[in-house]
């Protein structure tokens, strides 16, 4: 498009785990990009509204001005548009199907986690039960492997890792300890955190917890 900025721009928000998936993916592929911090609690920028009119959400990847929305779709796009860089998805169709299934499933961590810190009473208890089920399923899929697909860091690890700094907070609201209940998952989280692309993209749990408090105030929750 004439006049559009060339190259890659990532419209993102500092603590967004979905944005972090993209940052990790871009780092893993060694791709240069401009990071553009967006305002989400206040008014959204013209650029964000224009780039993602349907959801008005981050992350959005702009490639030569053309927008790609949704974190997992952005990761697919990076693999397909930059085939000469290290692939994020495996090559085999069945391995790809498994990766897609579990990466999409992991979105539930954030969805259920949000219900966990937002709701109270019976609804919060239901959210807790759902979270226990989700983390149990992820732990079960990981099993005794180093990473979800085996020996090497891959697509599912990339998709799930950004939720790990949220787990201590979720554990507090839900009354569970990831370390105690799912030690393999806890060990995996530490393993991922040791990877440079992940370490550079994630926020520490304390900052995430502070942010949840900001969101609570924003929603009018005072406890």
């Amino acid at each position, binding site marked *: 498009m004439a006049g559009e900025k060339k190259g890659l721009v990532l419209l993102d928000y500092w603590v967004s785990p979905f944005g972090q998936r993209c940052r990790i993916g871009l780092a893993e592929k060694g791709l240069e990009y401009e990071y553009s911090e967006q305002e989400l609690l206040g008014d959204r920028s013209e650029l964000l509204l224009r780039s993602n009119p*349907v959801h008005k959400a981050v992350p959005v990847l702009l*490639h030569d001005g*053309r927008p*790609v*929305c*949704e974190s997992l*779709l*952005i990761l*697919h*796009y990076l693999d*397909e*548009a930059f085939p000469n860089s290290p692939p994020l998805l495996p090559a085999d*169709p*069945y391995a*790809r*199907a498994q990766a*897609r*299934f579990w990466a*999409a*499933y992991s979105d539930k961590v954030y969805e259920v986690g949000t219900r966990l810190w937002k709701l109270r009473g019976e609804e919060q208890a239901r959210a807790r039960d759902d979270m226990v089920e989700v983390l149990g*399923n992820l732990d079960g899929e990981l099993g005794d492997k180093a990473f979800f697909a085996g020996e090497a860091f891959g697509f599912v690890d990339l998709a799930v890792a950004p939720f790990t700094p949220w787990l201590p907070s979720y554990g507090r609201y839900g009354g569970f300890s990831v370390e105690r209940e799912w030690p393999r998952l806890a060990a995996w989280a530490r393993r991922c955190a040791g990877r440079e692309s992940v370490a550079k993209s994630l926020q520490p749990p304390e900052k995430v917890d502070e942010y949840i408090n900001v969101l609570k105030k924003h929603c009018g929750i005072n406890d």
Partner: protein
Amino acid sequence: MSPPVKLLGTFSSGFSRRAEAALRLKGVPYELIQEDLSNKSELLLMHNPIHKKVPVLLHGDRAVCESLVIVEYIDEAFDGPPLLPIDPFDRATARFWARFIDDKCSTSFWLSLWTEGEVQKGFVKEFKQNLALLETQIKGKRFFGGDTVGYLDIAASGIAHWLPVFEEVASVRLVTDAEYPDLCRWAKEYTSHETIKESLPEREKLLAIFTAKKDFFMSTVKSMVPK
């Protein structure tokens, strides 16, 4: 030689029929195993322990779950005309709108059918806005995939074939030619497509099944409507 393909599915499930549409478009022979969702088989529970839902594609000893994941698997694992566009940006666009259909359209549609009064008016407004966005994607095109049926057409099949049946059961009319001329034109093209129509359940049978389940459908929205 490729191992045999089986599909765990049901007669009336739009999700199950997505997988069938993809298999037929690719020319892949398969055996359909009808599931009774009120009495789920060991096979289903074993191969989809997480969601316990149809469809599940069994390709030799591989099990693939989730209809859109299955459609992409079919596109990648078998030769035949491509279901997804070739260009990376077009692929991202197709995937985006498929998810929009499943995340936004389906939910607002379902809530529009079975709620009443002011609450229903709100969901109807939301659904119509969602559909208007989808209409922009089919304007000037024969199929969402262009000249040939593709991934997004399959993803949107619920709108083409199941939606009018639900409208009839709920006595609600949301999608009219006047308001959505391109979507309605596409729906006719899609449902009369030579290969696709073989994957669609007969309308009268769907109507009978859904009419019998009307009370159940109405009960599902109680937990979905935010307080």
